[in-house]
């Protein structure tokens, strides 16, 4: 039962042109005149005796809004012997022919042509097309029930019904045929258990005599016909409406049609599976009725027989009276602005020059600017100074260090897996590529087609980290395409269109790779050589079929010498729908603190970008500029969006997670950034075992170099190909290490350090204070801060202890420990 509270007077809060919309339990339809009816789908074709089609009626109003009138409309069929329609708008076939469906609501009328074919044909119920969807909708074959790898209660089905040829004998023949009685279908435990007339661990899953129940019963009466290997598959889903702007409390019926590989299009609204990705914004019933709740934007995931798609539901945070005043530095700002305008979000102010400089240093080279650089930048009066600073920072030598670290994480460069020599060879290859600013497509091509000695050919180590063809396929898909294929190894991907054929088709590119030992460096050195064999095929282990090499959604392709060359061509092609988008999203996330798609390496149709147009534009620009990484970084950093303050404003605080980038996303320094920043602030250099003195944390070749600080601040073990491996979680050990440990005291007390140098040189106190502020939070202290600091030092037992305390406080401040 729905709770209806008395409506109350909306309190309008006016905040710099923002009209916050009140939350309401019941939405009221638009008050302006109804201009037109839109009926979805636009035409109806009913095939076969059991065909039905749901209709959705969308009203278009003078003020530009839309409203779902499906449940208010009056429906009538011009000839009930051909098709009938019920009060809820579901059309059913009754005889062959053509008929017009009349729809009337709010003084507007519409007609919908309906064609019926084969209405009286005696067509047995089809297992693949009709039975499996019923079982899936009822939840029988979900992972927690009979779809589990071991089944449930002795009854096992393929997960979500992806394998009808497996499911049919499980239902019809296993346990000596006990589940069905063809001669007396309603005696079958297949029917008695889910309706609850017989004890069922899964409870009631079907209503007796419902349409779904009738399908199963009829299938048994038809002799439980089996599926064949030639059965059609679903090739696509069409959802109407595919996006809606709604107000809280508003409802919208959606209609889902599936296209089968034999060409027919069928209404599956009642059989599709619905999942709301964010219930607090919009929820959906099992019959496809969306209810809007809170402000924001979300998607409804819709799945049916191995295909998936989404519906976008938007509830603007506020109504903006006038267009946003937001000068666009480049296309990024233009695309974001459109989204903000739609959602009623107002961006924060620009950040200060000090914050900007610290930010681009940390994001681009993982290094804090030194006090002289900060002073010079602040003194610069040129209007182009931010642009110039970006160019300068991109040319810094630390660029190679910092991004080699990132690539080291992505490629999992590690001495335990590769031996010292392999690790160095791979690490040095990455550094060389970055030094020369090698275009990304060339880098990826060299990785995919690598062969030879792992000690001399850096990229060959790529094939030592993933050692089997399936691992190599998974890594390649996740790293370069942002697609997680792992699920499809054992069964059809539950949220995606990827099947086991797609998975093993991709693995087929790598199946001929071999690894052998070499003795060139001596028999105990364990050098490996990656080489190609002439033969070897990948099979789909379920069907046993030999898989032709085939990239995701691509055509079959082969190469007589090295199949991987074809794969590299396909992956790095400008037209590849995944490659450019994947890297555009990753680099966006590295600089903006949050991907347009999150998690950043899980790109799929059912995990859409928060701003698809922006992602598309970024990817296109990246591809057009020959996959130049520095160009991509430059474009992002030059956008006004990147240069916004991290402080939220009344106009954007409702977007708590900053999904739409109306401000900069503050985040803790990474382990390596923090280690180097501590060195920088204290004027010392940490010594890393086994590496020359002066080596910085961002220069470490792998994560096996001993350092408690780096471990406790979450550097990744480089064991799995996932951006999530680097932990950004806070923990108590981090706080204790910096607050209480002797680590900081030792560093601050070093004779060659920043403090002792000031004491030795007898620097005047105000200058010391300014220097400490510049070396830590990269800005001058305010006059209040200066006088408070002076006061403190004066009261301290000694100047040494006073400034020591001041530095300790600064290093433990959030302003220091965060990139903001």
């Amino acid at each position, binding site marked *: 039962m729905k709770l209806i509270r008395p409506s109350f007077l909306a309190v309008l809060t006016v905040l710099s042109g923002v009209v916050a919309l009140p939350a309401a339990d019941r939405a009221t339809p638009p008050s302006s005149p109804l201009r037109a009816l839109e009926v979805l789908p636009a035409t109806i074709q009913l095939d076969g005796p059991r065909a039905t089609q749901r209709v959705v009626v969308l009203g278009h109003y003078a003020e530009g809004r839309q409203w779902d009138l499906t449940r208010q409309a009056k429906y009538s069929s011009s000839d009930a012997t051909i098709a009938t329609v019920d009060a809820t708008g579901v059309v059913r076939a009754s005889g062959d022919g053509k008929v017009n469906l009349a729809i009337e609501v709010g003084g507007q009328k519409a007609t919908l042509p309906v064609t019926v074919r084969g209405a009286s044909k005696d067509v047995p119920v089809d297992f693949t097309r009709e039975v499996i969807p019923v079982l899936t909708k009822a939840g029988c074959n979900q992972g927690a029930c009979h779809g589990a790898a071991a089944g449930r209660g002795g009854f096992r089905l393929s997960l979500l019904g992806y394998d009808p040829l497996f499911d049919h004998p499980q239902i019809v023949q296993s346990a000596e045929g006990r589940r069905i*009685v063809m001669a*007396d279908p309603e*005696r079958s435990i297949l029917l008695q258990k889910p309706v609850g007339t017989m004890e069922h661990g899964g*409870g009631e899953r079907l209503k007796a005599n419902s349409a779904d129940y009738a399908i199963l019963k009829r299938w048994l009466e038809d*002799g439980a016909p089996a599926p064949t290997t030639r059965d059609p598959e679903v090739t696509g889903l069409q959802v109407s409406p595919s996006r809606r702007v709604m107000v809280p409390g508003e409802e919208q019926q959606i209609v889902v049609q599936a296209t089968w590989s034999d060409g027919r299009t069928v209404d599956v609204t009642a059989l599709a599976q619905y999942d709301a990705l964010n219930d607090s914004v919009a929820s959906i019933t099992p019959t496809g009725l969306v209810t809007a709740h809170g402000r924001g934007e979300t998607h409804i995931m819709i799945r049916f027989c191995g295909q998936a798609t989404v519906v976008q539901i938007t509830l603007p945070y506020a109504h903006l009276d006038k267009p946003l005043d937001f000068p666009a530095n480049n296309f990024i700002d233009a695309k974001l602005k459109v989204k903000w305008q739609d959602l009623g979000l107002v961006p924060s102010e620009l950040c200060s020059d000090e914050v900007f400089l610290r930010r681009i240093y940390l994001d681009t080279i993982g290094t804090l600017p030194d006090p002289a650089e900060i002073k010079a930048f602040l003194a610069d009066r040129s209007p182009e100074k931010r642009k110039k600073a970006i160019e300068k920072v991109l040319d810094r030598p630390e660029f190679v260090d910092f991004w080699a670290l990132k690539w080291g994480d992505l490629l999992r460069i590690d001495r335990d897996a590769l031996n010292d020599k392999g690790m160095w060879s791979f690490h040095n290859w990455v550094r060389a590529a970055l030094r020369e600013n090698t275009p990304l497509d060339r880098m990826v091509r060299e990785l995919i087609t690598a062969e030879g000695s792992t000690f001399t050919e850096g990229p060959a180590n790529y094939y030592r980290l993933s050692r089997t063809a399936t691992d190599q396929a998974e890594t390649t898909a996740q790293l370069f395409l942002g697609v997680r294929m792992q699920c499809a190894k054992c069964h059809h991907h539950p949220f995606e269109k990827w099947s086991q054929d797609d998975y093993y088709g991709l693995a087929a590119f790598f199946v001929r790779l071999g690894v052998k030992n070499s003795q060139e460096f001596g028999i105990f050195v364990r050098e490996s050589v990656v080489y190609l064999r002439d033969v070897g095929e990948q099979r789909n282990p379920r069907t046993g079929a030999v898989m032709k090499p085939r990239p995701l959604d691509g055509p079959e392709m082969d190469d007589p010498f090295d199949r991987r060359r074809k794969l590299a061509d396909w992956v790095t092609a400008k037209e590849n729908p995944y490659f450019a988008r994947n890297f555009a999203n990753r680099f966006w996330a590295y600089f903006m603190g949050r991907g347009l798609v999150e998690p950043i390496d899980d790109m799929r149709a059912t995990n859409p970008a928060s701003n698809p147009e922006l992602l598309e534009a970024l990817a296109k620009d990246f591809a057009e500029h020959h996959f130049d990484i520095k160009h991509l970084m430059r474009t992002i950093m030059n956008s006004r969006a990147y240069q916004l303050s991290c402080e939220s404003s009344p106009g954007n605080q409702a977007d708590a997670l900053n999904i739409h980038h109306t401000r900069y996303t503050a985040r803790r320094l990474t382990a390596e950034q923090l280690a180097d920043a501590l060195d920088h602030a204290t004027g010392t250099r940490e010594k890393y075992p086994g590496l020359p003195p002066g080596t910085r944390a961002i220069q470490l070749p792998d994560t096996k170099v001993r350092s408690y600080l780096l471990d406790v601040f979450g550097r990744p073990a480089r064991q799995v190909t996932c951006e999530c491996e680097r932990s950004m979680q806070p923990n108590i050990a981090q706080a204790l290490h910096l607050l209480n440990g002797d680590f900081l005291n030792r560093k601050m007390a070093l004779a060659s350090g920043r403090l002792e140098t000031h004491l030795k040189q007898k620097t005047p106190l105000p200058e010391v204070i300014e220097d400490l502020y510049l070396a830590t939070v990269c800005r001058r202290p305010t006059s209040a801060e200066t006088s408070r600091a002076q006061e403190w030092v004066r009261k301290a037992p000694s100047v040494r202890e006073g400034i020591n305390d001041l530095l300790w406080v600064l290093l433990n401040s959030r302003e220091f420990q965060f990139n903001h």
Partner: protein
Amino acid sequence: MRTLLCCLLLGLAGASVRAADPTYWQDLRPLLRKHCTYCHSTKNLGEVEVSGGLALDTYQAVVKSAGKPGASVLLDRLVTTNEDRRMPQGSDALAPEKIAVFRRWLETGAREGKQPETDITVATPTTPRRKLPVSLPTLATPPSGLLGPGKPGPLQLMLQVGPLAPITAVAFNPDGKLLAAGCYGRVTIWDLQTIQPVKVLTNVLGSVNDVRFSPDGKLLAVGGGQPSARGDLRLYQVSDWKLLGTLAGHQDVVASLAFRPDGKQLASASFDKTVRLWDVATHKLERSLTGHSDFVYAVAYSPDGTWLASASKDRTVKIVETASGKSRFTLSGMDQDVLAVAVQPEGKQVVSSGYESGLYWWNASTGERVNVQRGHGVAVHEICFSQDGKLVASAGGDATVRLWSGGSGAPLRTLATGSLVYAVALRGDGKLVAAGTFDGLVRLYHTGEGRPLLTLLSLPAHGDQSEWLALTPPGYVCGSKGVIEQGEWRMSGNAVPRALVWKALARPDAVLKIAQGTTVPAPTFSK
């Protein structure tokens, strides 16, 4: 006694009883079935972590545990706000209107009411509402032009009688003159000397999973039941097919039966995880063997009756002493359900098979696996020996019956049936093998030559009138009037004039001859 209990409760409640008041059978049992008895059943009493030692699947048990209306533990468990105690466990509380039924039932004296008819009546399957064509091929090929302009080819008999219930049990009687074939709700007894059914037993409950004649041929045991609800085990007197008794107790269907070679004991294996041993004369339960942890699919006695072998979904075969119930061996090493087991007539070896393809031979005195014979490639549902032990037949999910040497285990012959084989039986002399298949037909083969002899079809009918058909490969047919009247013939997919074909092929004499192994000339067609 039950009346007494009711009166007692009535007295306590002090409420007047009206016809509309809830009763156990009408109102309570459907609720209990939906929400409680999946765990709280007699079947689960042994598994305390599931049932908590409480069964709610009989009237007596519910009354016993319900308590007084004012202080009912059962009711308290439904309404308590303590989520750890509230039932059903792990789900939402029952709807208030359902709880009200419970309360009202207690207040009005916890009446039993009348068991609904559908619950007790023997499930005679109704004639299927749909009539799907069943096509039976023959080798009979009429001369060109005789039956119209169509392309000549072998004739097919079409009957609108489908879908047929799969044949799940077949058995020859000791002298080999009778063949019993069971399917859901029905056992047809065929007389192989006249090739016609002598009796159709319909007073069985639900599925029929096994049929066995006693060693002296005087009794027929029929095992089956309602899946997931109750087992059904009946003994019939062969002389007049009188039902001698129902051996009640199994909680789930009976899957397999075996008479001890002396005929005095009957073993029944059930999906309720037990094997029960019954005294054939008194119908009393002598012993219940509970060693298996899942469905027991098959059971077979040693020739001296001192031990038996049972096969289970728990992936083992157990060899158990019948007198003590002590387990001798657990034969393991299979990764999937074991569906069938048979003991060699000398008692030295045991053969098992199941979802894992292959016949596994075991030494009965050491429990060692001595041989594995692959062949079917998929599940093997039943195995049997000939009386002399020289021949083994297996029922394959690959739509074949395979014959193996009873000595070496070597494959001898493969008989293609065209449909999954659930049941197989060898006539005592080993010369005939019968296969019960998923398509609802019984097929008889000559084992020596691997030649198909007969296809038998029995249809559900009302009363004693049985509709049936026996078809031979050359095309000669005999059958009941109803079947012959409605049967249509087709050639190369086209209908042909019926009368002409029937004239040539409706030949009971020829059918009989073929069944007895005599060769009969191919049919001749004339205008």
